C-alpha cells in the first residue's frame, strides 16, 4: 500500500480514548486525479480523528490538498474523475461506501460546509432567505413558509439585524461579513454534527474575521458540532483549533494538539510557517520571513520528503535520507498524539537551539541578510 503508516495516526485525536473510533475518523484518505500528464496526488494518505465539540485546524499552503480533502469528506468529488480510497467514518458510517443518494442525504444535514468567498458561494439570482430555506427544505418535510420562518430564525441566530426583512435581500445587498454569517446560517440550519469551514475568513477584513470566528465558536458550543477549519492563517488556528494538522504536498507532515504545535513544532515546514507570521509587537522595519522556494507540483512531487528542496535543515540529516526516503509520521518529543514527518534525529532540539533564537532576532527588527539563494 502506501509508504506512510496510517496505523499510527489512525483515529488519533483527543477524543479517541477507550471508546474507540471518534466521531469523525479519516483513515489513509487518498484523492488522486488522473490527468493527461499523469496522476495528481492531491491528497495522499491522510489520517485524523475528531470528536464532537472539538475543532481541528488544517493548515498548509495553496495546493497542499487541504480543500480537496475536505470536499471529499462532503462527497463533492463524486461525479468527477477523482479516484478516492481510504475511509471516512462519520459517526461509524463510512461515507465513501455510501451510494450517491445516501451521501446526498447526509450532505448539509450531518456534514456541511462553509466556503471561502461567500459572494461567489451564494447564487446571485436568489434571495439569501431562499437559499438558506432551500438547505432546510432539502432535508425536512416542511412547506415554504415554515422553511422561511426557520431561515429567519437562523439569520437572527447568526446576528443579522432585522432578519425578517433581510431574509428577502439578495447576496449582493449584504456586506461581506453578513454574507459569511448567512453562509454559516445555511451550514448550520440542519444542526450538522460536522462543519467544515474552508478558509471562512480569508475574504473578510480583520475586524469582521474576529466576529465570524467568535460566532463559529459560540455556535459550536450551542450545537456541539465538530469543526474542521481549513486555513493558512495561524492566527485563526491559535484562536479556534484544539488540534492542528499541517499539510504539505498532499500529506500530513505534523499533527497534534494546537498548543504543542505552536510552541514545540518538530517539522521544518511548520517552523517556516511560524517564522513567516508577522509580529504586531515587533519593529515595523522587520521584514517578513518567507519560506524559500515554491510549493511542489503534485503531479511530480519531490522524491523522499516532499519538503526537502526547500528545507534549510537538510544538512543535519545523515546521508541522503531526505531525498530518497519518505519520513514516517513518528511521535514527537512533546508527547500526546503529536506526530511529525521528519528525518532530523532530534528536531525539538534544533527548534529550541536554532529556530527560536532566529525568530526572536527577526522580531526585534535586526537587519536581516538576504537569504535568497
Amino acid at each position, binding site marked *: 500500500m502506501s509508504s506512510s503508516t496510517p496505523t499510527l495516526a489512525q483515529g488519533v485525536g483527543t477524543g479517541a480514548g477507550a471508546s474507540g473510533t471518534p466521531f469523525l475518523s479519516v483513515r489513509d484518505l487518498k484523492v488522486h486525479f488522473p490527468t493527461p500528464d499523469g496522476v495528481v496526488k492531491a491528497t495522499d494518505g491522510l489520517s485524523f480523528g475528531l470528536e464532537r465539540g472539538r475543532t481541528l485546524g488544517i493548515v498548509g499552503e495553496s495546493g497542499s490538498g487541504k480543500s480537496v480533502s475536505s*470536499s471529499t469528506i*462532503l462527497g*463533492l468529488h463524486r*461525479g468527477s474523475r477523482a479516484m478516492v480510497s481510504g475511509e471516512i467514518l462519520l459517526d461509524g458510517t463510512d461515507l465513501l461506501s455510501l451510494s450517491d443518494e445516501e451521501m*446526498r*442525504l*447526509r*450532505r*448539509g*444535514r450531518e456534514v*456541511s*460546509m462553509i*466556503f471561502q*468567498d461567500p459572494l*461567489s*458561494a*451564494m*447564487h*446571485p*439570482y*436568489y*434571495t439569501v432567505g431562499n*437559499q438558506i430555506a*432551500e*438547505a432546510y427544505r*432539502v*432535508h425536512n418535510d416542511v412547506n415554504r413558509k415554515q422553511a422561511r420562518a426557520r431561515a429567519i430564525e437562523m439569520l437572527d441566530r447568526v446576528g443579522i439585524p432585522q432578519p425578517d426583512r433581510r431574509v428577502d435581500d*439578495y447576496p*449582493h445587498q449584504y456586506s461581506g461579513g453578513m454574507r459569511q454569517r448567512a*453562509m454559516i446560517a*445555511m451550514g448550520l440550519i440542519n444542526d450538522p454534527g460536522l462543519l467544515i469551514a474552508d478558509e471562512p475568513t480569508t475574504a473578510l477584513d480583520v475586524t469582521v474575521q474576529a466576529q465570524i470566528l467568535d460566532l463559529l465558536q459560540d455556535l459550536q458550543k450551542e450545537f456541539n458540532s465538530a469543526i474542521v477549519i481549513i486555513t493558512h492563517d495561524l492566527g485563526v488556528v491559535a484562536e479556534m483549533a484544539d488540534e492542528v494538522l499541517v499539510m504539505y504536498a498532499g500529506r500530513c507532515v505534523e499533527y497534534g494538539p494546537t498548543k504543542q504545535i505552536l510552541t514545540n513544532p518538530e517539522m521544518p515546514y511548520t517552523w517556516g510557517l511560524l517564522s513567516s507570521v508577522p509580529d504586531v509587537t515587533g519593529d515595523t522595519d522587520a521584514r517578513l520571513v518567507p519560506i524559500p522556494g515554491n510549493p511542489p507540483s503534485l503531479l511530480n512531487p519531490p522524491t523522499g520528503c516532499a519538503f526537502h528542496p526547500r528545507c534549510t535543515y537538510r544538512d543535519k540529516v545523515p546521508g541522503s535520507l531526505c531525498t530518497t526516503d519518505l519520513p514516517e509520521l513518528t511521535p514527537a518529543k512533546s508527547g500526546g498524539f503529536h506526530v511529525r514527518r521528519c528525518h532530523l534525529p532530534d528536531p525539538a532540539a534544533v527548534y529550541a537551539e536554532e529556530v527560536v533564537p532566529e525568530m526572536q532576532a527577526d522580531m526585534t527588527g535586526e537587519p536581516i541578510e538576504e537569504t535568497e539563494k
Partner: protein
Amino acid sequence: MFAYVIRRLFVGVIMLLVMSLVTFLLFFAGPLDPARFACGKNCSEAQQAQTSKALGFDKSPVVQWSDFVKGVVTGRQFPDDPALRKAAPKLVTDCPTGCLGYSVVSTSTVNKEFKEAIPVSVSIAIFAFIMWIIGGVLFGVIAALFKGRLLDRGIVGIALVFFAFPTFFIGQLFLQFVAIKWRVFEVPDYMSIAEGGIGAWAYNLLLPAFTLALFYMAGYVRMTRAFVLESMGEDYLRTARAKGVRQSRVLFKHALRAALTPLVTMAGLDFASLLGGAIITETVFNFNGLGKLAVVAVNTYDLPTLVGLVILLATFVILANIVVDILYAVIDPRVRVG
C-alpha cells in the same frame, strides 16, 4: 424603470433618424439613377425626368430625407410634386401618418407592402423561435449533462452539421424530398389565420420555420451547452450540492438560471433580426414576407421600400434591445434599479 425605458426609446428614435439619413445618402451615392429603374427599359429622357420628379428623386437626398421624416410624422401624398398631383388628381395616392414612402415598383405605398409581408415574416419568426429555443436549450442541457460522453458528442456533432449547411440547402432538401417527392407534406404556401384557420396557418409554416429553426437550434445547442458547463463550475453550484440539493435541481434551478442571462440576450436579438424577414427561407419556399420583399427591392433599386425595410428592422432590433435589458432586471437582481 419607467424613466429608463422612456430614455431608451428617445435614444432609439434618434438612432432611427440617423439610420434613415444614412440610407438615403448611401442610396444616392451610387452611379445609378433610381428613376431609370422606376421608369422602365424603353424610357425617354423626358419620361425619366418626369418619373424622377414624380418620385421626388430630383431633390437633394437630404431634402428627400426630410420629406420622408415629415411623411412619417404627418403623412404625405404621392406623386411628390404638387404640379403633377394637380394634373392627375385621380392618380394621387394618399399616405397617412406613419408613411414610409411610395414604391413605384409595386405601385403602392410601402406601408401597404409591409402590411401584407409582415404577418408572413412574423409568423415564420415566431414559429421558428419557439422551435429553436425549446430544441436548442433542451439538447444543450442534455449535452452538458452528458459532457464528453457519446450522447454529448452525438448532439454536438449533429448540431455542427446543421450549423454548417446553409439554410437554402436544407430548405431545398425539405422542399424537394419531404414535400415534392415523398409527399409527406404538401408544398407549403402561406395562409393567414383569417383565410384558413389556425390549423392551416400552422401546417404551412411548419417546413419553412423548421428549416430556419434547425440552423439557429444548432447554434443554441452549442451555446446552451457552453453556458451551462460554465455555470456548473461556479462556486454557488458547489454550495448547492454541499447543501444536499438533488443533482437535477442543481442543474435546472441553479445552473440553468445562471445560464439564462446570456441566452436571453442572444435570443432577443436573433428573434428581432428574424422579424425583419428570413431572406433565404422565404425565397426558397416562395413566401411573400419581408425577406423576399427585400430581395426584390434591392434588385429593382426600390429606394422607398429599402428605406422602409431598414427602418423596420432597426426598430425591431432597438425594441428587442430594450426588452432584453428589461428582462435582465427580471432575471438578475443585481441589475435592478433601487
